[in-house]
């Protein structure tokens, strides 16, 4: 019989539960969406930071899953990186969401959150982010859709 708590296998219901549409907290706390997040500016290459954070997140979540499977609900970490230089359209800001699909399987979603999409983000993606995934065991590569980010 499988132990109760976090399943060892990928669970898409768990993934779905991270949708913003299910998070009703903004009804109560105004415009602040309550979530754990990290935001900082860094001189390190973004890829290094993302891979380190992903690794740390994985360690925390693995530990949580092994010590308290009943209460551990996995996690979703948000990470924002602001570029140092002001580029053509303001600072390049990259946002990453890190989900746990299973204790041994992380999904990291990276997207541009501000700044120039045409040159700077493309450069970030090809020079920093893609090479980052090649250092690790990656089962699939995420193709970034060409998408306008609409601001309110």
């Amino acid at each position, binding site marked *: 019989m*499988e132990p*109760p*708590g*976090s*399943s060892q*296998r*990928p*669970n*898409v*219901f*768990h*993934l*779905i*539960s*991270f*949708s*913003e*549409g*299910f*998070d*009703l*907290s*903004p*009804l*109560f*706390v105004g*415009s602040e969406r309550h979530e754990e997040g990290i935001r900082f500016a860094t001189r390190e290459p973004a890829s290094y930071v993302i891979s380190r954070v992903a690794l740390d997140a994985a360690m925390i979540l693995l530990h949580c899953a092994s010590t308290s499977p*009943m209460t*551990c*609900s*996995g996690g979703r970490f948000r990470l924002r990186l602001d570029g140092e230089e002001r580029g053509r359209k303001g600072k390049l800001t990259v946002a990453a*969401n890190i*989900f746990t*699909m299973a204790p041994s399987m992380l*999904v990291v*979603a990276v*997207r541009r959150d501000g700044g120039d999409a045409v040159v700077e983000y493309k450069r970030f993606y090809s020079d920093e982010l893609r090479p980052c995934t090649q250092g690790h065991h990656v089962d*699939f590569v*995420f*193709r*970034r*859709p060409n*998408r306008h980010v609409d601001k*309110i």
Partner: protein
Amino acid sequence: MGCVTSKNANKYTPGYEDPVVLASKTIFTVNEVEALYELFKKLSCSIIKDGLIHKEEFQLALFRNSNKKNLFADRVFDLFDIKRNGVIDFGEFVRSLSVFHPNAPESEKIAYAFRLYDLRHTGFIEREELKEMVQALLTESDLVLSDELIDTIVDKTFNQADSKGDGKIDLDEWRDYVKQNPSLIRIMTLPYLKDITMSFPSFIIHSENSETEAI
């Protein structure tokens, strides 16, 4: 019909129900229901000032963007709209939120989550519905995965949950599945509901006669 302000408390929003009645039918106290009414008035008059929560007002409250479409927010809205008339009135608002209270019975939460995921109201969660929800989540997160990979991860979960192997997840299978994975109903609890009287103080003074004065 103007919007209801707290100075005008003898003119209630459409679908208003007596807080004493609502408190008896839900997990909330009378004070908590009154606090929810303050919140409800705010939400229901943000765009269309008719004292009812429309979809755009719901989207505005959740996403700060009245035009933002989201499959899961749509499901929540649909379930809140108990009378199925396209808007959420105060009674529906309180009755629905009751299930999200930390102290609400787990069986209610499990059944509610099942209905949320039963996109086409068939009484079962079908594989196609699960796949559609996964795709919606991936789109929302700006993730693109191949169709084969989506099928693979959907199948893994679906086959775990569909213990009878009949191609759909019924409520019994869902209950068993949640027992093995309690975190699946974490979306069904809103800790904020415990402090609602502090977040939305209500200044209604109750009097014996039918007219209620508000400060």
